């Protein structure tokens, strides 16, 4: 009678053991997720308006990406590239690292940002920045711009 009862309990004991194993696996997996790091991160921030809605306007790339709390992602060596409707690169922004807010679709950092546009004729750098998806870039400190026009002499009175 006793042995029968033990035999009847065996599946329950096995199930309990398995549940414990699954729980511990899930726990270790959750720990891995908190330190998750992706390489070659890419996400499009904007597309062009119709009729070019299939063409990417702004692309955010990062050498490495690490999720943070609140829907934010830390990007190492990020680049923000803006393209024309025919796919030509018109603006490139580079920084050692930045934070991509996936909810607000903004890119920001306290680090140095370098911006190059018009095929290198216009170069800007500054420390601390915020870029929004409506094409606004704010540089907070130590802004330095270089524009290389054609040589021309200004006449003075």
């Amino acid at each position, binding site marked *: 009678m006793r042995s029968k009862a033990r035999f009847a309990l065996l*599946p329950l004991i*096995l*199930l309990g053991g*398995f549940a414990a194993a699954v729980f511990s*696996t899930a726990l270790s*997996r959750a720990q891995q*997720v908190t330190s998750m*790091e*992706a390489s070659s*991160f*890419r*996400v*499009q921030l904007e*597309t062009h308006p119709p009729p070019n809605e*299939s063409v*990417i306007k702004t*692309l955010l*790339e990062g050498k490495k990406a690490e999720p943070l709390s609140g829907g934010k992602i830390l990007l190492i060596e990020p*680049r923000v*590239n*803006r*393209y024309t409707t025919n*796919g*030509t*690169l018109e*603006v*490139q922004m*580079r920084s050692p690292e930045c934070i991509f807010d996936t909810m607000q679709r903004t890119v920001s950092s306290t680090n140095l940002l*370098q*911006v*190059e546009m*018009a095929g*290198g*004729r216009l*170069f*800007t*750098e*500054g420390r601390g920045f915020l870029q929004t998806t*409506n*094409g*606004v*870039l*704010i*540089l907070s*400190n130590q*802004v*330095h*711009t*270089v*524009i*290389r*026009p*054609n*040589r*021309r*002499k*200004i*006449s*003075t*009175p």
Partner: protein
Amino acid sequence: MKTFLILLASIFLSLSVQAQTELSATNAAPATNLISATNSISADALSSSTNSIASTNRIEIFSDSAEFLIETNIAVYTGNVRATYGETKLNCDVLTLHVPKGGERPDYMVADRNVIIDTKDKSGKPVHATGDQGVYTYKVENGATNEIMVLSGDAFIRTGDGSSLHADPIIWNLGKGTINVASPHMIINQVPKEISTNKPASTLSHTNQP
């Protein structure tokens, strides 16, 4: 027992699917509309931009902060703004400029508050101008370049020969090197010189006249 085995199999199946999903999320970007950036500028190109300070054929702007409206190619520099182009130096509190798409230089600049311009004339003498606002426009029409700076708000200019002018506005044609003004108050700095005349010398005043 059969039920138990089915339960076990389904748990394993769900676990393996979850593992695959997480793996793909770790290694890939969000799945929508990704492209390869084939036109990207190299890191070397950027660093050379920073280091090539030797060239004078360029406009340089420094400021505390700035806002760029990339869609419209407008930049607004704020706080302790200093701009240089060759011998010309501009200081102001706020500088707004527009660089046309594909253009090589700003075609429109507005310098606001405490505007100070220092440059040199053709003979290398210093020219100093101030005002509350300076509006610069650059146009090429029918092959002719039109480059004008309009200074307003207690505008003042001191030219290389030391002459100075208060007017509002002062329209400074940078291409031609001319100035047009409204209601001017001009001070000409004239250095007095020895003037020789035909007046007889005083020693000859007493002669043998009859």
